[in-house]
């Protein structure tokens, strides 16, 4: 089994934390992983993406081929659309519907949502709003991971939850607890 995932968002939204959690879970489960990240200039409020590849076999390329990603997980709707050419024909898009407008020419919101909703396999929620309503504004990214969890398949939601505990352990029990709640919130919001 293999899962090729593109993680997308805007610098500072926490997609590398999502990658860290999935990576930790993969390492614990003995699943092979390659994960290309973006560092440096691109992080200053620009678009950020990470290619995350999980497989039970050898993984050669750090980058995902066009037309072969199984999932796009995005913190921002326009950023989800940016990587469509990488998605395979059965690919799933899991994205936040909360837009992040830090550019003057951001596309029309309705047209953008229309294009996303036209996809056959898309799961979309206003995760930042959800995280705020549930008093966990800093864990929006983990809510998103929860939403994506049941599609990741090669790792179970339980394995991901265990990894959340390890990744946030150094930040104290309350942070761990909040992120576990955020994860479950996302997980339970997807049928």
């Amino acid at each position, binding site marked *: 089994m293999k899962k090729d995932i593109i993680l997308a968002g*805007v*610098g500072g939204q926490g997609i590398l934390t999502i*990658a860290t959690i999935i*990576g*930790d879970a*993969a*390492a614990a489960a003995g699943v*092979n*992983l*390659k*994960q*290309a*990240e*973006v*560092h*440096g*200039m*691109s*992080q*200053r*409020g*620009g*678009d950020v993406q990470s*290619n995350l590849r999980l497989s039970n076999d050898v*993984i*050669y*390329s*750090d*980058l*995902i*081929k*066009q*037309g*072969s990603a199984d999932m796009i997980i995005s913190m921002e709707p*326009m*950023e989800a*659309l*940016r990587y*469509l*050419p990488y*998605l*395979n*024909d059965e*690919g799933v898009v899991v994205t936040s519907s909360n837009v992040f407008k*830090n*550019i*003057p*020419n*951001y*596309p*029309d919101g309705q*047209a*953008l949502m229309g*294009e996303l909703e036209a996809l056959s396999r898309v799961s979309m929620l206003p995760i930042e709003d959800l995280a705020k309503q549930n008093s966990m504004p800093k864990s929006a990214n983990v809510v998103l991971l929860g939403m994506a969890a049941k599609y990741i398949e090669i790792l179970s939601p339980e394995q991901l939850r265990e990894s959340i505990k390890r990744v946030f352990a150094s*930040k*104290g029990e309350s942070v761990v607890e909040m992120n576990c709640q955020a994860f479950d919130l996302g997980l339970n919001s997807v049928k």
Partner: protein
Amino acid sequence: MISKRLLLGDEAIALGAVHAGISGVYAYPGTPSTEITEFIQAHAPEVRSRWCTNEKAAMEAALGMSYAGKRAIVCMKHVGMNVAADAFVNSGITGVNGGLVVLAADDPSMHSSQNEQDSRFYGKFAMIPILEPSSQQEAYDMMPYAFSLSEELKLPVLMRVVTRLAHSRAGVEVTTPLPQNALNPDNERTHWVLLPGNARRQYASLVAKQPQLQLSAEHSPYNRQHSTEGAKLGVVACGIAYNYVMENEPTKRGISVLKVSQYPLPEQAIKALAAECDALLVAEDGQPMAEEQIKAMLGADYAVKGRLTGDLPRMGELTPDNVGAALGVEQTQNFTAAENVVPRPPALCQGCGHRDVYDALNKVAAEYADARIFGDIGCYTLGALPPFRAIDSCVDMGASITMAKGAADAGVHPAIAVIGDSTFTHSGMTGLLDAINDKSNITVIISDNLTTAMTGGQDSAGTNKFEAICQGLGVEPEHLHVVVPLPKNMEEITRIIREEIEYNGVSVIIPRRECIQTLNRKLRQKRAQK
């Protein structure tokens, strides 16, 4: 003892170097090499690891440690090699005592750089061995190998990686660490005093070692062939390109592959592959260095394909897609590019002091028809983009001051330089001295955010020393100002800039306010400790 860890390519290099028994890492931050030194700083207190002011200083200090018999690594981004080049090339002439590895992290596609120069040319130029790992595991494994090779050949070894390896994570099996070397300075002065008489002998010895370098590459455990029976096409896959080739299942397609991760190019192996096949494709990230050499090796009649022939793109990084296309793999695309997507370029952070500096500069510059603002390398280069569109140039570390000087010499007025604190100590100070000695009519803004911000907030060498440095170089005290870049101080800042533009000579204005990113990080750490 073997254990498996999830590591960035940079971290695998760092841990490999620590386990190879280095006593020091010398580096100036630069994407994509920064995390190597950061990892050593965080995990290996027994290794000397403080940041250096620039790559030349780093290279020389590492050579000094090697002279003393201990193992050292120097790390930099590709353009840092230009800064270190004098010391680097001459380290091939002196040779080494303790093992010395120079790590150059190239940035094909220029994700965070102003060019995509290929550091392998520097290795060839200096006539030393080059290693180019294809994976994180290989990067780790190659470190002890590189240090042994360096000590065996008595030469520095260049390891070249690219962004996609440096900044990609994978599982790495790690082994038992080696101890550090004992102090054992080289007493042979003729190796190290490069007076022409000695230098000629040393150069002759370097030339004489070349067959040994060649032999080492031919037998390298990192260069190996995957033959496919009856293959028409052979691929020479250099460094990370090997992964993109393998991703496209060459064996299934009847293609033979020669993986190259150690240079000089293994000529015998390449000629053997060429003899088995009708044509060769050279897949290499960066510039077509191997392709040019292989063309020369095989003669005009043999078909060598690659970046020069257009089978692979002439510029930009390799991907599994463009390598697949060169191998004749059909591209799959299920979804065309979305309509409602626009570029989202990076920008200066909200609350960043550089923003206030550019607001002030733009206000004053608008009052002069011919104002020119010469920028430099760092976050503040983003001042070139909207909404500021404030700078007229950005070329290399330190060039703001010296280009402003040259332009002022030619008659441009006002000629304003904008340089960051870390870039100023890296390469700005010498140019400022020139300007002072020439009494050039320039206004220099040292935008001091107390850190090396662009690369993630490393210590900046000149923190708390800038007024003293400027005065020591000869800036007149009445033309040296420190301001706090905040909107409430805009009137004072613009007034000072105006006055100093009107002064015919060198003025320095230091807007000083901590980087918003490092400030927030410190506040978060404080909260976490409570």
